[in-house]
Structures are given as structure tokens and as C-alpha cells.
């Protein structure tokens, strides 16, 4: 299956390259970082094609992934100076995006999925809109008709619950 899916991945990537570059560049404002993140986006799919087997819209998934990588990169870049020298947080200041690729294994990912499905509906919605759709709290609030502060509250609940769920049966 892997080799069979590869041409599709490459072809899709070539097709979305320009758009992907724009989506990433407007967030990181640095050509070198954009190139890195694009490569990282591609490698994620290339190295784990199984992940894509069931994805209906490959191009869309590429774009979402690239944009989220860019958002994460920016977030970490802003925090990096403040976690400098703090034990246990070295990885945050590590600028190589690939460092995060092995963040959690497949089994954990499945448990995370289950935990996500069990969140209170609003917390789940907020988490997904933030993590998967890359929206800000203000944008999420607008969609759900709640204040950014309430969005923040739901996000705290989501993060805290997910962390607890992941911990309990380790």
C-alpha cells in the first residue's frame, strides 16, 4: 500500500506547493523557515503514508498540516527566549521542526482520539477549532457565539482533561 500511495502524495504535494508556501510564509515571514516547514509537511506524509489512507481530501489535509506546523513554529519561537535554560523544555527552543514528529506514538494517538471524543462538547469543539483549524480564540468565539475568555476557559478544560486521560492508564 505504501508505495502505491506515494505517487499520489508527491503529485498532490506538487499541486499545492505554491499555496502551501503562501500559507506558511504569511505566518512565519521567513523564506528559510518556510522551506523547512514545507519539507516537514511533505515528509510527514511521505514517511507515514498509512496516515493518509482514509483521508478524502489529500490536498486539503496538506494545507491544514502546513498551516498548523507554521502556527506551532511561531508559537514556540515566541516562547523560546522565556524557556531558555529551563530543564525539560529544551525541545521548545529547538528550532528544527522535525523534533516534533515523534512527539507521541501511534498508540498514544489513538488514546488521545478517544479522550478527545469524551470531552464536554464545547471543550471538544474549542480544542478542535484551535488545534485542527488553527483558529484564534477570538475567531472561535465568533463562531460559537461566546467570548474569547470563555473560549480560553474551555481550552483549559480540554487540555487538562486530555492530559488526565492520557495519564490514567499509563
Amino acid at each position: 500500500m505504501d508505495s502505491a500511495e506515494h505517487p499520489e502524495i508527491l503529485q498532490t504535494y506538487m499541486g499545492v506547493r505554491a499555496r502551501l508556501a503562501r500559507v506558511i510564509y504569511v505566518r512565519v515571514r521567513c523564506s528559510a523557515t518556510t522551506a523547512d516547514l514545507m519539507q516537514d509537511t511533505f515528509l510527514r506524509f511521505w514517511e507515514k503514508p498509512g496516515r493518509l489512507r482514509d483521508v478524502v481530501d489529500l490536498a486539503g489535509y496538506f494545507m491544514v498540516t502546513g498551516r498548523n506546523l507554521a502556527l506551532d513554529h511561531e508559537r514556540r519561537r515566541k516562547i523560546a527566549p522565556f524557556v531558555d535554560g529551563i530543564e525539560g523544555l529544551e525541545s521548545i527552543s529547538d528550532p528544527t521542526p522535525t523534533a516534533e514528529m515523534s512527539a507521541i506514538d501511534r498508540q498514544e494517538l489513538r488514546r488521545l482520539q478517544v479522550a478527545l471524543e469524551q470531552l464536554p462538547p464545547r471543550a471538544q469543539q474549542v480544542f478542535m477549532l484551535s488545534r485542527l483549524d488553527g483558529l484564534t480564540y477570538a475567531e472561535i468565539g465568533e463562531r460559537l457565539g461566546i467570548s474569547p475568555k470563555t473560549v480560553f476557559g474551555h481550552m483549559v478544560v480540554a487540555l487538562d482533561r486530555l492530559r488526565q486521560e492520557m495519564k490514567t492508564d499509563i
Partner: protein
Amino acid sequence: MQNVSQNETCPTGEADLFRRAAEWFALLLDESATANDRAEFRLWLESNPANAKAYAELERLWLGSSALPEVAGSPSPTRRRVIKAGGALLIAGAAGFGTLAYLRTSAGDYRTAVGETARIALSDGSTVELSTASAISVNFSETRRLIQLHEGEAFFTVAADTSRPFVVSASKLDTTALGTQFSVGIRDDAISVAVAEHSVRVSSPFEVQDVFEGQTVLFANNRLSRPAETDVGSQLSWRDGKLVFISTPFEDAVAALAKWRRGKMIVMDKALARRPVSIIVDVRRAGKILETLENGLPIRVDSYSPWLTLIYPR
């Protein structure tokens, strides 16, 4: 900036510590976080080595969750499913439709706003594509897969499961499929069912009718029309973000387009309203709809406000 609890309390237990870590993480996640927030975050990290550990754990979860939704090995790998589990989640749309536009209002309920579309993967492997301003409820049981269409239009790609019929219920009309592709749409005064693959059985309280690939039926005034061979492909072209009109009376095209943009459009000339037009309109860019019409058809458009547009012959 959101209010991370500022009072100096020493965490009394692990739960508190993790809660605080979650607050910091959530705060720094958003673009509204300030340099001042980050400086205070530093102080919090330094106050207890366990804080950094808790934060690192959240960071790891966050990074890992970018790979969600997890698409686990399904029993039938050929089935193109978006997600395995009970919940439904949306991946598609980003490329075609600009925003991942859907709102999950409560468990099993999905809705799109004007100009939005969404693709939803259901737990049985079926998918639903919601057209603009549409709403459905999903209700699956051991014996039946029931979808209620409340408004708008939805296209269904049904995963075969002979033990559980797939039923789309819109007002008084039930459409039953075992494994096929079809759409059900609610219009002002009618419900339409269009079949893209295989067949479905349409039943009202008064009659039952099988509808086959390439056919459309209308249900209006408690009556089912005979199945008509129609261009189902162009009828369902909204799924690609395009509306295709082929020799369609202009007023019908305008009525269809009106569902994709806010504000009213009125055709000011009777002859123009009845004139058949053929045009392809990209509805992903609602703001360009009028421009497309004006460029492609012999018409003149006067927009008095975002809410009112009058259309004249040129």
C-alpha cells in the same frame, strides 16, 4: 489577555499544578498572549521544577495531536473513511472551501452557515457533504442509520451495511439506501432527491418510489413526481465548490445562488428572469458571485447595500 490566576498560591497537589500548567499553555497558545504574559510564565516555570515538567507534557500532547484525527487501520482498508471512531470529524474542505466550515452544535448535529460547505465522516464509514445553510442530525442505532435533514441539502455516500438501512428523513419524505450516493435537498416548497449512484427508495406517507442513478424526484404538495432523468452531475456540482447551470431560467439560477451569499438579489425584468442561461459560478468566493454573473451574462447589477442587489438586462 485571558486571566491566568495571578494570586500567589503554592499548588497544593498535582492536580492543581497541572491545571495551572493547562492555563499557561492555553494562554500562550493564542495570539493574544503578550510579552508580559511570557515573562510571568518564566517566573512560574522557575518557581518549581515540576511546573516545567507539567508544561512539557502538555507541549508533547499538543504537538502529537496535530496528527489527529487518528485514522486507525480499518477492517476494510479500501473504504475511504476520514475517521474510525464514534464521533465525526472533518478534514476536507480546507483546500476547496476556504474554511473548515461546520459547527457541531450538539452531539450528532451538524450545521453550515450561508456560503459554507462541510464534509462529515460518520462512524459507519459513510460521509455526508453539507451544502450551504444546511443542518442535519445523526441518529444511529443497532437497527437503523437515521439522518434527519432539517434544512438545506446534503449529499450522502453510504457505506454498505445490509443489517442497518440508511434512512434520510426530510419532513414527510424518507429516502432509504443500502449503499449508494445520493442527495436530499429541501427547497422552499419541495424536497428533491437526486441519485448519483445505484438507487434509493423514496417513501412518503402516501406512496413509495424507487429512484435510479441519474434520476431526480421532487416531493411537493404531498405528491411525488415521476423520476426524471436529469443532469445529476451539474445538480450536485456544489460539492466541488461550483454551481453549474445549463439552460436554466435565470431566476432559478439566481434563487440557487442566493443560498450561497447573504443579501437579497432581485431580477427586475420578467423576460430576463425567464431567459435560460448557462454559466458556472464558483461559490467558494461568495463575494465574486455577482461579478461572475455580470461578466458572463448580459445583465447590469445595482447593489444598494450588501443586503440588496437589483439585476437589470443590459
